[in-house]
């Protein structure tokens, strides 16, 4: 190596990268420490002497116990899991069919329908939540998981369709034509030849859709009202704050445990997740 290159590498590479990683991950470390810190240590003013906030000498499980004994946290987890899985399955089903149709079939208005779906992809939930709440009430879906299972696909389907279209376009037409010459119908060629090849795309879209539904907040906040129907983000927000009092220990424990399912799925499928993320951007 060239003389002086070593310190250069430290200053221009390791130092900034280290600062980035530290700032990006510190809030999660802080969540972790707070979860296991007893209340007596938690509520010690910041100017108090001998204050060592970056770790704890007396780890405790009291906050996690509180979460499961005094709140419906376990129910919220089950609710969120069910809603996220159901809306992901619905979105993948619709997205697969629509993605196939838009990328491989020729029919009138295919182009404008594709644009239409892309535009709904860009409609934020916050634009529609008030009239949608009214509609949910009229359909008698309010305060049931179905209010979310049916509305989450509105932002998941466009994403799944868009991502899967990219995968379908990359599959050579000859494959399908071979199957059709051998006597397969269009439907069979689609289900047995094309869909299996697109499995990596389906996995990416599915994981992305799952994390998006786990993350969703405003619909869940507005459409659900009884504590036993809530999802994790809404439950933690509304049930662990009484007036102005924040139960920081259980709150951080809830945030930590509520993040774990997403983190686990993410850690198993990082590559698929990144492919989904970048695929959606490249269009």
């Amino acid at each position: 190596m060239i003389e002086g290159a070593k310190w250069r590498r430290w200053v221009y590479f390791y130092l900034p990268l280290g600062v980035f990683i530290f700032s990006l991950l510190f809030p999660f470390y802080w969540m972790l420490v707070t979860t296991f810190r007893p209340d007596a240590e938690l509520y010690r003013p910041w100017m108090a002497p001998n204050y060592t906030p970056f770790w704890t000498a007396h780890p405790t499980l009291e906050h996690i116990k509180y979460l499961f004994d005094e709140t419906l946290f376990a129910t919220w987890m089950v609710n969120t899991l069910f809603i996220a899985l159901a809306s992901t399955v619905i979105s993948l089903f619709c997205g697969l069919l629509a993605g196939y149709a838009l990328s491989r079939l020729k029919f009138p208005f295919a182009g404008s329908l594709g644009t239409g779906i892309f535009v709904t992809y860009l409609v934020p939930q916050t634009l529609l939540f008030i009239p949608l709440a009214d509609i949910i009430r009229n359909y008698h879906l309010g305060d049931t998981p179905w209010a979310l299972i049916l509305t989450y696909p509105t932002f998941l389907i466009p994403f799944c369709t868009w991502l899967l279209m990219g995968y379908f376009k990359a599959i050579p037409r000859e494959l399908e034509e071979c199957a059709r010459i051998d006597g397969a119908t269009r439907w069979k060629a689609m289900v047995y030849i094309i869909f299996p090849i697109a499995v990596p795309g389906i996995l990416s879209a599915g994981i992305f859709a799952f994390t998006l539904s786990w993350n969703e907040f405003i619909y869940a906040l507005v459409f659900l009202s009884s504590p036993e129907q809530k999802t994790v983000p809404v439950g933690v927000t509304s049930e662990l704050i009484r007036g102005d009092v924040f139960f920081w220990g259980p709150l951080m424990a809830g945030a930590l445990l509520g993040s774990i399912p997403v983190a686990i799925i993410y850690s198993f499928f990082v590559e698929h997740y990144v492919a989904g993320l970048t695929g959606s951007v490249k269009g």
Partner: protein
Amino acid sequence: MAISYAARERAYVAAPRRGPVTRLLEDERWLGALLLLPTAVLLALFIAYPFVKGVLLSVTDARVGVPGTFVGLQNFIALAHDGIFREAVWNTFIYTGVTTVFKLALGLWLALLLNRHFRGKALTRAFVLLPFIIPTVLSTFAWKWMFDPTFSVINWTLYRLDIIDSRINWLGDPQLAMISIIIVNVWRGVPFYAISLLAGLQTISPELQEAAAIDGARPWQRFWHVTWPLLLPVTMVVVLFSVIQTFADFQLVYVLTGGGPANATHLFATYAYQIGVGTGLLSEGAAISLAMFPALLVVVVVQLLYIRRVEIH
């Protein structure tokens, strides 16, 4: 002879009998329509219908439980004279503009760092994306705890480092609260920019860099004249996506400040929630939400035009 006869026989039996439905599905137009049906139904019911309903709602004086009567543009006129609404509009533009600049600059920097070769690269990349995948509400609570006026770890650190000698009231002061929500948004958004731009960087052939280096281009020139122009298409899409998300943001502000102190940090969405759901003035809430639409429309049209231009090239 006998074998080939049997084989032919079997082939004949196995050939599917095609009913009218199958024949209809052989027609691309019918198959296309059928495949798009579930998507079309869901999007019509829960996007198109609520949008129309929102427009209709915004020209009435409906409240929760009261259908309301037609009042024309009165809600929008009232909003134009509403000081809090005007501040929310101003805040939304500041919030979107400032965070986008920082997210792009820091995200690009991080992407360039991650594009180098070093040990533990895959693991680093996986960890970097965590702020983006962990549910926003939950990670925002961690920030709220870090910004706590009495127990803030940030204040503690700054105090021990002798940078401050009295507490910083992060979320209690109007201007600091705005800065705080900008910090958290940038924190959450940088990984998305970094990973997307990294994917863009990886499609750029290193030979181009080498060629420029041989021609005597300095690192900064190589970035500005080679990397940046090639990265621009990905950057455009990432920025437009992020601008839409940030413009319509809700959860971050709802958790950190709830629009306070004294309505200083309201965005379109949080103010619409406060009016439409908090006080039950459905029509005014719907009008506030809809007021986002023109700005979003501009962004979407720019994006569509840009994609079309790229596709033609």
